[in-house]
């Protein structure tokens, strides 16, 4: 199927997922993810060339409700659980100027 997942791959994936792994977890997860992915290679025994993918149990397309206004959360309710809020908005640390 593909080359065995490496420690560098795991570090890269962790960064994509906004997780920081210490050295011990990098080693642990590299081994565990490799074992899980190796097990998944059993599907190589199947001929999947003409099989379409299924992403969802039912073929749903653009389910929409009537465009009618209904009750929604109040601003206070929506902000009640925020770690930090100011002037009716969620407050976060600096965004601009940092590396992506």
């Amino acid at each position, binding site marked *: *199927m*593909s080359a065995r*997942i490496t420690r560098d*791959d*795991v570090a890269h*994936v*962790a960064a*994509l*997922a*906004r*997780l*920081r*792994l210490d050295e011990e*977890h990098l080693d642990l*997860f590299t081994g*565990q*993810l490799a*074992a*899980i*992915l190796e*097990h*998944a*290679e*059993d*599907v190589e025994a*199947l001929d*999947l060339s003409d*099989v*379409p*993918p*299924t*992403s*969802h*149990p*039912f073929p*749903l397309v653009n*389910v929409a*409700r009537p465009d009618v206004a209904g009750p929604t*959360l109040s601003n206070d*309710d*929506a902000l*009640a*659980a*925020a*770690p*930090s809020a100011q002037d009716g908005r*969620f407050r*976060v*640390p*600096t*965004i601009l100027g*940092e*590396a*992506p």
Partner: protein
Amino acid sequence: MSAGGARALDLARDIAAGERSAVAVAQAHLDRIAEHDGLVHAFNVVTADAALARAAEVDRAVAAGEPVGPLAGVPIAVKDNLATRGVETTCSSKILQGWVPPYDATVVQRIAAAGAVVVGKTNLDEFAMGSSTENSAFGPTRNPVRTDRVPGGSSGGSAAAVAADFAPIALGSDTGGSIRQPASFCGVVGVKPTYGLVSRYGLVAFASSLDQVGPFANSVADAALLLDAIAGPDPADATSIPQAAEAVLPRLDEGVAGLRVGIVSELLGEGIAPDVAARVREAAEALAAAGAEVVEVSVPAVTYGLSAYYLIAPAEASSNLARFDGVRYGLRVDAPTTNEMMVATRTAGFGDEVQRRIMLGTYALSAGYYDAFYGKAQKVRTLIGRDFAAAYEQADVLLSPTAPTTAFELGAIADPLTMYLNDICTIPTNLAGHAAMSVPFGTGDDGLPVGVQVLAPALGEVPMFRAAAVVEAAAPAPAAFEIAGSK
């Protein structure tokens, strides 16, 4: 009164008739929780005051002659990944600890409208990721039948609550077996309804194309009662089936004469403990004795279900769990920039199994690997659907074990892949979007409960429950147990 063993149907009938007090019923269950939950740890939070107030309201309505619902005064436990307005909802994760939702999940609204009394929120594997309830940030739940054993997972708290008579019924969620496998381990009934039959609105999303809310109960009839109360279309869930749900409870006693029951041959051989397989064959004999036509059927692709599931579910989870970023609710670990804050928050807030699945999913979806992993898994999903469709031309319902073994000891399984093998019999149903339920049927050689799984095609709940009722009636009487052990 004591809480011991009362059925929801009996309680609701007696309470609605004014023959029993809902407050007394609630208090009896709260007393039992107070006595035993220190050891079992089925609950993350017990809502005693709210439960007694709610029960008093039911008693008042009965006395005033006002209509009460089909679950009038029935205590119920709710898995802690279902949003409850004003009551902390944690998913057993540090990242949501302290979160108090501003709204109720649709199923929580429906059980309230039906008159049920919520006694608390139950423990789970963090974000429903696990098969033993050992992955909870707040400590494991113990199996009340034998407290050195796990209750299964991820809805282990709900299964344990029902087995321990902390509540006659409970709500769980099932993404790959998280209702059925703990039901099997704890000796109770657990139902994974057809995808879309029950609203997911307010269920904290794990894998959106697989998740489904469903009932736990101490009897097939009580499970039907609860399913009928929560099933049906919901405008707030775009994936809910738009047609009205067919009531199951009135059809329960129709029997299985002429019903075609298929034993899934792939799920009775390798990887299944012989004592568990023996109980499934005995359940099949009981169905045949009751007039069903029992045949053996083959569903070859189910053997690849595990491989497909452990790419698809983590892929969806990696996307769903991106919302936990320290901005709008839940944990925030402060840092100089937003990106650093998100990394610090997620690293501190998610446990190992959740981090593992987020990374597995992120990898399976990442550039260069998408076709090799996620794309192939989606094709296997198609094959599983096709093979089930072929099997359902030969049979109306299918039969298999729910789990490959009885409940294992706490701490016995450390390797993630070995833990995932618990789900081999339950995963294919989620991938297909079908219905399935676990019914207790005797015990294994170790004296612990065995669950038999009855599977049905989409919206096949009525024949599934009819078969389950016959299996239940033929099952050996469960052994009485005392909740005992040390923490």
